[in-house]
């Protein structure tokens, strides 16, 4: 045990803590709190009832006031710990509140209501997860539809991206033809063309094609990513040409060479591109916001932004929907993080 701790906390040589060791651990622990804290706070908050969300100071874990049904009263009553005049405390249920006093009854022996000053009572609270925050949006907000739209856009865009990008990368890495360097130049030059620079004309093109208020209008402009062509081409350049020549000798068609030889060998790069593409398309916001104006077509991101922009924000629903929106990305993060980090470190692309 001591050795484990010694290993985890190993220092910059010597017995004493160098100042850099202190900075390191302050930075790491601080980073841990700052990077994960907000997301955890979101998750805990998403299980709170609207009443608990409005409290200050807030509790960290979701607590809710306990309620009891008392004989003779239709609605469930809220339970309080009450300090009685003789100094003893007792669990009583509140019937109603009048000014600074409230009328309370004993749940066990409901008789005459007792008058108690509101300063002498405290609600009885217990840990409770408001799972209705998660179930109700599916009924009230067409949440399933948004989820479905997001999944459709993400899956379709990623599939098409993989196909057209890998075909282009194959052409640009394994063939000699006129205009090749020109095509490569165009792709490289537009690596940095952001949506914000072309959104007005792009919108008019989408409308001309009849793709306004259509999920394909969200998908198509995003699929021919220069980034993807670039990553795949760099990878395909490492595949030896002899393999392809040998296949040609065996009378394989170019199409067969593409999908039976080159594609399987490019699998690692395809995996990286697929992961990136899923994250990009799942997270896309501005372009879907422009193209989709009908409620039933919203993606999760657009739906969330519209509902959170309303005058009376229903935070208990927004928070739980945010958590659901976060889930796929968190899964990617947990299981595929290694691919992404090596992808970024290797190419500097995001």
């Amino acid at each position, binding site marked *: 045990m001591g050795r484990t701790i010694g290993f985890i906390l190993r220092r910059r040589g010597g017995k004493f803590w160098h100042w850099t060791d202190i900075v390191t651990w302050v930075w790491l622990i601080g980073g841990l709190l700052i990077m994960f804290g907000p997301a955890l706070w979101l998750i805990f908050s998403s299980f709170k009832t609207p009443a608990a969300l409005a409290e200050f100071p807030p509790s960290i874990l979701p607590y809710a006031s306990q309620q009891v049904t008392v004989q003779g009263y239709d609605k469930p009553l809220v339970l309080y710990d009450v300090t009685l005049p003789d100094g003893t405390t007792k669990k009583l249920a509140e019937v109603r509140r009048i000014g600074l006093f409230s009328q309370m009854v004993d749940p066990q022996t409901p008789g005459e209501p007792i008058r108690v000053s509101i300063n002498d009572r405290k609600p009885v609270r217990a840990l409770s997860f408001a799972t209705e925050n998660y179930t109700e949006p599916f009924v009230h907000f067409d949440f399933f539809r948004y989820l479905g739209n997001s999944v459709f856009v993400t899956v379709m865009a990623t599939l098409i991206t993989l196909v057209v990008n890998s075909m282009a990368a194959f052409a640009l890495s394994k063939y000699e033809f006129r205009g090749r360097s020109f095509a490569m130049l165009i792709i490289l030059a537009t690596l940095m063309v952001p949506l914000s620079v072309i959104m007005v004309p792009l919108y008019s*093109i989408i409308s001309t094609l009849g793709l306004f208020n259509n999920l394909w209008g969200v998908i198509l402009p995003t699929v021919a990513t220069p980034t993807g062509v670039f990553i795949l081409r760099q990878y395909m350049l490492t595949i030896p040409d002899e393999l392809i020549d040998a296949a040609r000798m065996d009378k394989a068609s170019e199409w067969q060479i593409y999908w039976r030889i080159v594609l399987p060998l490019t699998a690692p790069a395809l995996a990286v591109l697929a992961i990136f593409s899923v994250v990009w398309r799942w997270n896309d916001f501005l372009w879907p916001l422009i193209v989709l104006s009908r409620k039933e077509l919203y993606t999760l991101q657009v739906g969330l932004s519209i509902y959170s922009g309303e005058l009376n924000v229903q935070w208990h629903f927004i928070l739980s929907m945010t958590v659901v929106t976060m889930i796929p990305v968190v899964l990617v*993060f947990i299981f595929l993080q290694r691919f992404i980090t090596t992808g970024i470190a290797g190419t500097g692309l995001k």
Partner: protein
Amino acid sequence: MSPSASLREIALTPVRVVMGLIDAPLRALQKRTGLSGMALFFLAPNMLIFGIFVLLPLAINFVYSLTGGSALFLPDRSYVGGNQYERLFDCSSYLDPLTCQEDAFWTAVSNTFWFVVLQVTFMILAALVTALILNRNLAARSFWRAVFFFPVLLSPVVVGLIWRWILQRQGLLNFILYPFGVEPYTWLTDRMWSFTAAVGVSLWAHMGFYALILLAGLQAIPKDLYEAADMDGTRPARVFWRITLPLLMPNLIVVIVLALIRSVQVFDEVYILTGGGPGTSTLFLTQYIYETGFVSQPRNPGLAAAASILMGLVLVVLTLLQLGLGRRGENKGKR
């Protein structure tokens, strides 16, 4: 055959059938066009989509910026020459946005400028410190790397909402400050604080990305250099200034320019966080373009196009800067 392999066979069968069906007509095509024809065939889908949705918009954006009115389609729009640009640049004093005809544009320009300066400075510093720390002989380094990288993958909408929730009156920040005697405050209704929050939140969301690139650069520095310095008894500060920093320079330049390019386009998470407010205190260029072109009544696509071209010019300059500096950096690395 193992069960997982046979499962894969079953899953791949339809793909094989489709690919096989496509093969016959493509063989015929190949007979007629030869190899170079096939190359164009492979290139075509990507270039077609690319041409329609990236190159064409780039080209007609200029035409848009020379036309007026609120009509969307080019044939319905009237030619106004450089009027849109004149309108954007019509100012008595460029230092005071309120003296301009398009005061929102100049507010957005000045906000974006200060945002870029602050965000990139702190971003590079924080990313550098993080990378240096992650490059130390840490236990569970990949865990710590993941910690700082985590927010990078989150969607801007999620990031914006998480922080809006934290900065509101009953939020986490007030909760943390409460014991220190700070009264609960609605941070995002304050001009100065909401700008600070915009910078801070975008730092939180993107810092891990840049730290990762810098970390890769640090790990590429040959270890024997450090061993040699150690044997000579070189002081750590000197090692940093004389070995680490010069050898990290190419990566540092890439990271700085990349951060600048991204920072100029700031929109999503800040838009969700503050909506550009209060007032126009966090209105940035992309939001100005979006609102001018799509939200304002009547909308003005010509003005939005003109503003987007000006922003594009800034990005082109930054990209050229990167290409130029990057080449110099590469040569340095080789020597």
